[in-house]
C-alpha cells in the first residue's frame, strides 16, 4: 500500500503535463482531468479504509533511510482529509464542465486544476516541514492561475492582493522552517517533537508563532483574514467553491498538525481568543454584505473560528471535534457556493438587490440552498448541528464559558445572515424577464444541479452516519495527538 502514496502526487501532476500537451483539444483535456481526479479520489477512499485498519502508512521517497528521506506519511487524519478533499475536487470538476464556462474560457483551466489537486494531496501527505511548504507553494501557484483565469480588471485587482499576501505568507513560513532547522538540525516531523521539546521555552514560542502566522494567514483567522472576502468572490463560482471548501481548511490542517505534533505543550489562550474573534468578526462581516458570494465568503472566516476553537481547547476530544467539523464544513461550504453558481448563471448576478423570487421559480433550488444553509448555522438534524455540538460540548467540559457563549451567539447570527440571503434572493416575486413562476432553473442545468444535489446528499450522509464517522475522527485525533505513534510509524 505504501507504494501508492507517491501516486497521489504523480497522477495529477502527470495529468497536468499531458493536459498542457493536448492544449488544443478540450475533449481530451476534460477526459484527462476526469480520469486523473477520479483515480485520485478512488485511491484516497481505499487508502482511508486501509489506514484505518492497519495504522499509519509511510513511504520514503528514493529508498533513503526514513530519518533523512523525503517521507510521505498517511495517518488517519491525513487519509480522512485526502478523501473528503479529493471527492470535492472531483465533484467541482464535473460541475465546472456542466457550467460550460470556466474550462471554455481558458485552456489553462485543466492544467491548473490538476496541479491544484497534486498540491493539495502533497500538503496532506508531507512528512516534513519543508515539503509541506513546497506543496503549499504548488497549490498556491495553481490557485493564483485559477483566480486570475480570465485576466479581467476585477480579477487582476483582487488577485494582486491575494498573490502578494500569500507570497509574504510563504516568506514567513520558509523563515520559520529555516529557523527550526537552525535550532534542531532536522525538519522531519517524526524527529521534531523530541528536539523541539528540548529547546528553551522562548525559542519554542518564537518558532511556534512564526508557523502560526504563516498558517493562520492561509486559514484566514482573525487579524489575517481580510484578503479572503475580497478575492474569493471575484473568481468564477466553481473556482471559488473549491477555494472556499478546501484551501483555508488546508491551513487549519497545518495548524492542527503543528499544534498537536510539534508544540503540544504550548499555551493556547491566545489561540482561543483568536478563535473567538475570528467567529465574531467573520459573522459581523457577513451580516453587513449584500452580495451572496461575499456573505458566503465572510462565513468561511467565521466558521474557521470553530475549528481553531477545537485546536485551542486541545486534547483528544477537542481535536476530534475539530476534525469532524472540518469533514462537515468542506462539503457544506462547497455546496453553498455551487448553489450560488447556479443562481448567478441563471440570473446573471448573485447580488441580493438584483435577484429575487427564486423559491417560486424553482422549489428544488430553494431546498438545495436551505439544507446547507441550515447546516452551516447549526440547526438540527443537519451535520453542522453535530459539529457545533461537539465543539461546544468540549468547551463546556473545559469550562471555557466565554468561548461557548461566543460560539452560540455566532451560530444565531449565522442563521440571521442566511435568512438575509433567503429573503433577498429566494423570497418575493420572480423577475418576469427571467421567466415566471415554476420556470425550472434546475432543468436547464442538469449536470450542475446533479453535482450540487450529490454534494448535499453527502452532507446529509455525514449527519446520518455521524456515529461511525465520529469514532473514526476519534481514532484520527488519537493518532494526531500522539507524537510517539507518529515517530514509531515513520522510524520503526
Amino acid at each position, binding site marked *: 500500500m505504501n507504494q501508492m502514496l507517491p501516486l497521489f502526487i504523480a497522477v495529477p501532476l502527470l495529468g497536468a503535463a499531458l493536459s498542457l500537451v493536448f492544449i488544443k483539444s478540450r475533449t481530451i483535456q476534460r477526459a484527462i482531468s476526469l480520469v486523473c481526479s477520479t483515480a485520485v479520489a478512488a485511491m484516497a477512499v481505499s487508502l482511508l479504509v486501509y489506514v484505518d485498519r492497519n495504522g499509519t502508512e509511510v513511504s520514503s521517497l528514493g529508498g533513503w533511510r526514513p530519518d533523512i528521506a523525503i517521507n510521505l506519511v498517511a495517518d488517519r487524519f491525513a487519509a480522512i482529509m485526502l478523501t473528503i478533499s479529493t471527492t470535492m475536487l472531483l465533484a467541482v470538476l464535473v460541475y465546472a464542465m456542466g457550467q460550460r464556462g470556466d474550462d471554455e474560457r481558458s485552456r489553462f483551466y485543466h492544467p491548473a486544476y490538476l496541479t491544484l489537486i497534486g498540491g493539495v494531496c502533497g500538503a496532506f501527505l508531507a512528512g516534513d516541514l519543508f515539503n509541506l511548504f513546497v506543496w503549499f507553494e504548488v497549490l498556491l501557484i495553481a490557485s*493564483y492561475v485559477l483566480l486570475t483565469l480570465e485576466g*479581467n*480588471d476585477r480579477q487582476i485587482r483582487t488577485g494582486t492582493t491575494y498573490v*502578494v499576501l500569500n507570497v509574504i505568507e510563504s516568506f514567513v513560513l520558509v523563515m520559520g522552517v*529555516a529557523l527550526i*532547522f*537552525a535550532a534542531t538540525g532536522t525538519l522531519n516531523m517524526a524527529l521534531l517533537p523530541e528536539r523541539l521539546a528540548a529547546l528553551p521555552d522562548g525559542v519554542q514560542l518564537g518558532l511556534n508563532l512564526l508557523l502560526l502566522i504563516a498558517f493562520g494567514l492561509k486559514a484566514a483567522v482573525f487579524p489575517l483574514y481580510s484578503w479572503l472576502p475580497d478575492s474569493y468572490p471575484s473568481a468564477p463560482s466553481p473556482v471559488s467553491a473549491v477555494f472556499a471548501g478546501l484551501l483555508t481548511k488546508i491551513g487549519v490542517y497545518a495548524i492542527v498538525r503543528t499544534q498537536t505534533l510539534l508544540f503540544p505543550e504550548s499555551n493556547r489562550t491566545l489561540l482561543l481568543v483568536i478563535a473567538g474573534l475570528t467567529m465574531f468578526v467573520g459573522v459581523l462581516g457577513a451580516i453587513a454584505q449584500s452580495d451572496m458570494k461575499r456573505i458566503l465568503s465572510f462565513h468561511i472566516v467565521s466558521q474557521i473560528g470553530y475549528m481553531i476553537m477545537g485546536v485551542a481547547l486541545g486534547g483528544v476530544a477537542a481535536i476530534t471535534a475539530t476534525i469532524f467539523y472540518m469533514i462537515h464544513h468542506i462539503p457544506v461550504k462547497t455546496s453553498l457556493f455551487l448553489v450560488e453558481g447556479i443562481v448567478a448563471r441563471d440570473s446573471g448576478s448573485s447580488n441580493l438587490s438584483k435577484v429575487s423570487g427564486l423559491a417560486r421559480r424553482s422549489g428544488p433550488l430553494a431546498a438545495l440552498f436551505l439544507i446547507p444553509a441550515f447546516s452551516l448555522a447549526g440547526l438540527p438534524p443537519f451535520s453542522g448541528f453535530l459539529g457545533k455540538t461537539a465543539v461546544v460540548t468540549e468547551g463546556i467540559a473545559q469550562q471555557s464559558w466565554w468561548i461557548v457563549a461566543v460560539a452560540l451567539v455566532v451560530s444565531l447570527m449565522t442563521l440571521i445572515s442566511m435568512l438575509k440571503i433567503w429573503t433577498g434572493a429566494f423570497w418575493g416575486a420572480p423577475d418576469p424577464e427571467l421567466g415566471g413562476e415554476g420556470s425550472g432553473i434546475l432543468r436547464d442545468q442538469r449536470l450542475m444541479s446533479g453535482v450540487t444535489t450529490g454534494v448535499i446528499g453527502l452532507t446529509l450522509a455525514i449527519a446520518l452516519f455521524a456515529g461511525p464517522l465520529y469514532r473514526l475522527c476519534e481514532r484520527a485525533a488519537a493518532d494526531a495527538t500522539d507524537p510517539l505513534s507518529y515517530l514509531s510509524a515513520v522510524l520503526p
Partner: protein
Amino acid sequence: MSVEQALLIGVLAAAGTYLVLHRTLTRIILGLGLLGNAINLLILASGDEPGEPPIIGREGEFTDPVPQALVLTAIVIGFAVISFLLAMAYRAWTIDGNDDVEDDIADRRLAERNGDTDVEQAEAEQEGAS
C-alpha cells in the same frame, strides 16, 4: 552566522519591506524579490559555518548539504512566483495604463460615507468588469 551575513540579511529585508509598502505593483514585486533573497540567505545561514563539499565517503569537516538543497528549491519557487507577478503587473498595465493596486469596493464605500471620491462611478466600472 557572521556579522556580515546578518547585516546583509537585515538590509535586504528592510529595503524589501519598504518597497512592498508602496502602491505600485512593480515596486512591490521588486520588494518581494529583495525580501525573498533575504530569506534565502537566512536559510543558507541556518546551515552553520561553510566547510568542504559534502561527498559520500570523504573524511573530515564538511558542510551541511540540507540548507543548500532547501535554498535551491526556495529560489526556484521564488522565481516562478515573481514571474507570475510580473505577468500580472503587465496585464494590469495593459488594462488601465498603470499598475497601482486599487482600493477594494468596501473601502470606497467607506470613503463615500466620509464624503469624498466618486464611488458610484467606481462601482459602475466594477459591475461592467464582472
